[in-house]
């Protein structure tokens, strides 16, 4: 009993001193993002996860930080499977590649349209592309260029996927 109390006191002291290595999160406050749509508007990078989750800023980091700051809850990228870059934001792929919040197996697409993140996630779940962030990273290390699959957006929320 004495040892258990000592252990509990040590754990409490560690938490109070801010030495815990992990941040606690309330599961109810998590805002899971299934797909991210990255574009550029008025010279600013915009990152949209659907359901009103939007962040903007001059850089990738700033846009992601803005997305986190403007929502009530924790944006959860553990469930993100797809990142769609609009043609005007294709240069941000390199920044996404270095972002630890995204899993290396996240699939990457290019689009000329303005897809809704949630609709695109539903389509891409059934028709996944073949290029992931880690594929791009591996190709970059070998100084090779990766051709991203193209997500075409039609009227009425219709999509089509093309390999280049």
């Amino acid at each position, binding site marked *: 009993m004495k040892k258990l109390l000592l252990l509990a006191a040590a754990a409490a002291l560690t938490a109070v001193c801010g*030495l815990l290595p992990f941040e606690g999160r309330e599961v109810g406050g998590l805002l899971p993002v299934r797909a991210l749509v990255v574009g550029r508007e008025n010279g600013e990078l915009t990152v949209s996860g659907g359901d009103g989750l939007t962040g903007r800023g001059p850089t990738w980091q700033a846009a992601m930080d803005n997305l986190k700051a403007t929502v009530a809850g924790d944006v959860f990228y553990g469930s993100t499977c797809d990142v769609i870059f609009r043609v005007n934001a294709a240069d941000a792929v390199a920044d996404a590649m270095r972002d630890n919040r995204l899993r290396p197996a996240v699939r990457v697409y290019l689009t000329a349209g303005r897809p809704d993140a949630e609709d695109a996630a539903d389509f891409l779940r059934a028709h996944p592309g073949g290029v992931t962030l880690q594929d791009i990273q591996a190709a970059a290390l070998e100084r090779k260029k990766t051709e991203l699959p193209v997500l075409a957006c039609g009227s009425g929320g219709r999509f089509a996927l093309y390999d280049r």
Partner: protein
Amino acid sequence: MTDDFSGRQLCALALCAMIAPAVQYCAAVPWPWVLAAAALAAAYYIYIACMGGRLPQHLEPTAVARFALGRTGGAMTLGLAWLWTVLAAAAVCRGSVSAFPDARAFPLVPLVALYLAWRAADGGEAVVCRTGGVLVLPVLALLAAALAFGTKNVTAANLVPSGSWRDAAGPFAVFLLPSGVFALRRVEKGSGAVGWFLTGTFLAAACSVVTIGCLGAPLAAASENAFYLMSKSVSVFGVMERFEVLASAALMLSRTCLLAVLLAQGARLGKELLPVLPPRGGAAAAALAAFGLLWVVPAVPTTVLFWGGVVFWGFLPAVLLGVASLKKV
């Protein structure tokens, strides 16, 4: 509870302690070089077993140094071995943060690992062996789960043999780690040491095949923790799962086990050097020294740690056994 331990427990401890370094250093090395390193290590262990068999059974591994080099030479060698052991313990302790790359793991995670390892080593070598015998099963199960689901993403083209013989250096140092464990006691016949060694070899090769098969050799080599990166991409039924949590748990348990081995070894060497040390003082002295070196060890180059392992867990035991068996003849 008895104070003795079996050869099987010792082998299980060696495997459990070897898993974290094997995952870290073999995952990014192409599988042919992992197998080459294992073959070289197997030849080394055959030599050690042959030489050890020619010495009297009652002669403990640490006493071999005095028997081979005399009182002064033996004491100096044991002193150097103690210094190396606490430095290696500090490096292993500090390296436990690599099990949690996405968290602010320092200093809490290393301190918790050091405390748990000291508690085990403080109980004596039998407790350390029992710890290894118990932990090896969950560690293997966690790792097997991550590896089994990771095979789904393996691309056969990535597994074409590549690299050079220099890539075998890291895995070879990893395969020498059990040599440090066997300093606690010589392994007797019938403990299944060959089976345990083959299990370790299979595991290291499987880590290499799955990690490089998923990531490709260049990305695996460029990554600080290739196995963790691979486990972050494991998906089941098309949905990405948090398998990296399993990898973190397995690596942390294995590292704690390795740390306990090093502290027990430090305690044994300390007792041999200073027989006046109280029975429980050896492990505490080693743990305190490792704690003091925690902030210094990042400045030690990796090559120093590599060569330290090769000399103190490979070259030195081989030479000491060779000299001791010649003296006996």
